[in-house]
């Protein structure tokens, strides 16, 4: 009689475990796997799904079974059997989980060591994160800088990541791996993209107002396509050969200094005022005064953003350290091309083009 219930529930557990496993893999769908790391990681996922299906079924079947079968009749005032416990059982359901847990730990360690191990001939890409944009730099290719992450397929990649302000997190779901980008230190992430295609970096650590929109395009290309891209970028005119307006547009983009994350050029308000029609505009400041936007005001607003705050916007949002970062970039261009440029002038020139 007692045995019967146990046998019955055990049978049910086995059946529901199997059903649940297939249900889980059908509903809990991982994104396409586009990196070498996704292989072992997805395998570990499936092992976990197996344990989830089994342990969930084990407890639920027995609980529901008991609640349905061992019901007290309303007029029955007597108690159930006086069973206090069973040391053998307690030891069993302590020891077996310990073994499973250790097994998972060892397996997990192996996978981790495997996917984080340095590879020969890694290609380094530097990742710079800031509120709220990403930019990528290729030290192996004369420091090309790009707002898109362009990678050759089947080439082991090492990302060296830093942040200019707060913590962000680099994640491309199709690659599976994730790593925070922490100001004040360089964090490393290794992976090998395997599937050509278009993906997105999605910032995974809350980083303020526009965290949701802190995305960057990722393109995985074939070898030839990648080489073609590199050549095209290297053939691009030197900064010295561009007009100030053209340079200003580069500085504005994520590839440059990422003003685009907060300022639009089409009239929409993001975090800061739009640049459309900015030059010559009459604006109210939050202390009640009004100003007309001219070159002096623009220079001050860029280099010392907290000096005047446009009414309706917040102070302390726009990065206050552009002066220093511009100086570094200018020195770099001076060393490489022998010309002195003024990034603020370029930006002002670009802003003036946005008035038509």
């Amino acid at each position, binding site marked *: 009689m007692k045995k019967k219930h146990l046998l019955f529930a055990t049978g049910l557990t086995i059946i529901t475990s199997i059903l649940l496993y297939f249900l889980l893999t059908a509903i809990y769908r991982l994104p396409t796997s586009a990196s070498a790391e996704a292989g072992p990681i997805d395998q570990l996922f499936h092992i976990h799904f197996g*344990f989830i299906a089994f342990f969930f079924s084990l407890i639920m079947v027995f*609980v529901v079974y008991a609640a349905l079968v061992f019901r007290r009749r309303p007029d029955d005032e007597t108690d159930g059997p006086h069973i206090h416990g069973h040391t053998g059982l307690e030891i069993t359901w302590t020891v077996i989980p310990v073994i499973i847990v250790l097994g998972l730990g060892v397996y997990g360690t192996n996978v981790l060591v495997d996917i984080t191990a340095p590879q020969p001939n890694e290609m380094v890409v530097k990742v710079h994160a800031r509120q709220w944009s990403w930019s990528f730099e290729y030290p192996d290719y004369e420091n090309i800088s790009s707002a898109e992450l362009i990678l050759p397929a089947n080439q082991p990649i090492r990302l060296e990541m830093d942040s200019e302000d707060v913590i962000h997190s680099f994640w491309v779901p199709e690659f599976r791996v994730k790593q925070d980008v922490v100001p004040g230190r360089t964090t490393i992430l290794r992976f090998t993209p395997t599937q050509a295609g278009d993906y997105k970096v999605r910032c995974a650590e809350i980083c303020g*107002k526009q965290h949701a929109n802190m995305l960057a395009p990722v393109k995985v290309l074939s070898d030839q396509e990648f080489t073609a891209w590199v050549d095209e970028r290297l053939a691009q005119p030197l900064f010295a050969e561009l007009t100030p307006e053209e340079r200003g547009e580069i500085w504005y983009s994520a590839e440059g200094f990422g003003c685009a994350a907060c300022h639009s050029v089409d009239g929409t308000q993001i975090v800061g005022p739009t640049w459309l029609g900015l030059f010559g505009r009459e604006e109210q400041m939050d202390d009640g005064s009004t100003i007309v936007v001219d070159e002096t005001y623009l220079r001050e607003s860029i280099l010392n953003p907290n000096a005047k705050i446009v009414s309706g916007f917040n102070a302390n949002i726009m990065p206050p350290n552009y002066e220093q970062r511009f100086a570094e970039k200018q020195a770099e261009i001076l060393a490489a091309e022998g010309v002195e440029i003024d990034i603020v002038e370029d930006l002002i020139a670009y802003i003036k083009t946005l008035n038509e």
Partner: protein
Amino acid sequence: MKALWYFLTSSFTRGLIGQAIFTAIGMTFVNAIRSVMGLEANAEPGVVFGALLGVFGFLLGAGVLTDWIKWIFGKETPLRHGPPQGKPEWTRYLNVDYNHKVIGIQYGYTSLLVLLVGGLFALIFRIELAQPGMTLLTNDQYNTLFSAHGIVMITAMLLGVGAMVNYLVPLMIGAADMAFPRLNAFSYWVGIPAVVLILAGMVVGGWDTGWVGYAPLTFRAPLGVQLFLLGFYVNGFSSIAGSINLIVTVATMRAKGMTLFRMPIFVWAAIAAAIIQMTATQTVGVALLMNVTERAIGLSFFNPANGGDPLLYQHLFWFYSHPVVYLFILPGLGVISELLPVFSRKPLFGYKWIALSSLGIALVGFLVWAHHMFVAGLDNSLRIPFMISTLFVAVPTGVKFFSWVGTIWEGKISLETPMLFVLGAISVFLIGGVTGPILGTIPTDMHLHDTYWVVGHFHATMFGGFIFPFFAAIYYWYPKITGRMYKESLGKLHFWLMVPGFWVMSLGQMATGIMGMRRRIADYDPALGVQNIHVLITLAAFVIGWSVLIMVYNLVSSARSQELADPNPWRSRSPEWQIPSPVPEFNYDVPFEVVGDPYDYGLSGVAYIRMAPASGD
């Protein structure tokens, strides 16, 4: 009219007025000093100092400190007991009172109110998430709401733990009150200005850091972040004082014959939780204060620009904030273990194993904090040990599940509302439990970290480990507290709405997470293909919300019914059910003596306690 007057002169109102006045004094003081120093007067340090002084003002105004101040001046302060003189009974619950049952109920209704507020925040941003694109809120409003939802719910759960342990533990161990009644009142009342600070933070600009408040993001957030951090900090006083009180009470005031292994199992859980509260809260307090001062006056701890380290904050923060999870679930699991034998008419299976597994969970809980930082930049040599320790949490948790199954197996089960909620809790906590190890192994966590998988997982652990058991406890002890019975049909309706609602919600959250839905985002990429699931989650959230309102209606309306409840409607062996309901002012007229085991159902003629004769030793 009279009622309004009682309300306006209650500790509650006086406290709020005190808080306002002292905040103003603090701000003026700092601003005056700053203008003498030639600094900008209207600045953050003034707000911070004002906020802290305001908490003191609340306590002073409410009268929590009155007795202690009298002690300083050597005045007598007899511990006045009993209902207020010349005022209706209900005014007791709005005023400083030293009876542990009153304080427990104060904790309880405050917890429910705060829970409703936090739930409302969630419903608002769930509407936003039902569609991609910003439809209802701005990014700032969204960020403030989800951040506030987190900390408000944590506060609600802390209050809920306070409600259960305060009301139940002295009754269960046969004590007349807690060891330090005034400290007990302080622990409750100091939580109110903390909640006020957090809600005020939402008004003065809000904040966008989540409930974790990671530096250096806090240094760039709007002003509201300071009030949130301070509110969180002040909450800590409540935890530390409350836990010390509880530990002393259990250690020194147990009835004759109540050895450790003869205590009701809930008391074990309460002690394990109190140990965590007493030892871990200081760490988060320090971390929060460092965060506040670095932002307000430029001390340098966490900002790399000033030579600080952002990961230092995370270590300090999670050293508390991981164990705090167990602080919520241990009392919850204690309720499950307490109720199962009663509704199955069988002894608790493996009492000692369950008791010790609570301590085991508390202990292991201290060694796993870095799993919140698996992708923060720790070296493999550091994160691998934390992976192993994290996985080990599954072992004592498993012991509890198996022992629960052992308890109900072949029992004589009846499914009244409290038992339904206990079984619901087991199912939901099980979802939370089995979805944990996948976050514990680092390679899978690299995909799931900071996604909705985590959101689904911890909502399941919090609901299953705390909210469902808390509701079970409310229904179960409701006749004890009020002397009336709740309406069974409404209780069942609540259950049958909330359990499926919750399953859909958390399973849906996990599905979107694995597909690529990040946490804490105001808007999502329609290309992820998660929109339909989000609609389901939002609907489920509303079902849960309505079901909780049904419970509130049930609790309020049933309290007014004329019909008295049976003194021991569940035929429990526990001591609190052997005395009249509501419980008399001093609990037991005559002390009891423990003469058997607490859960000997099925063994006739053996009692757990015996009321000592009135003249007894």
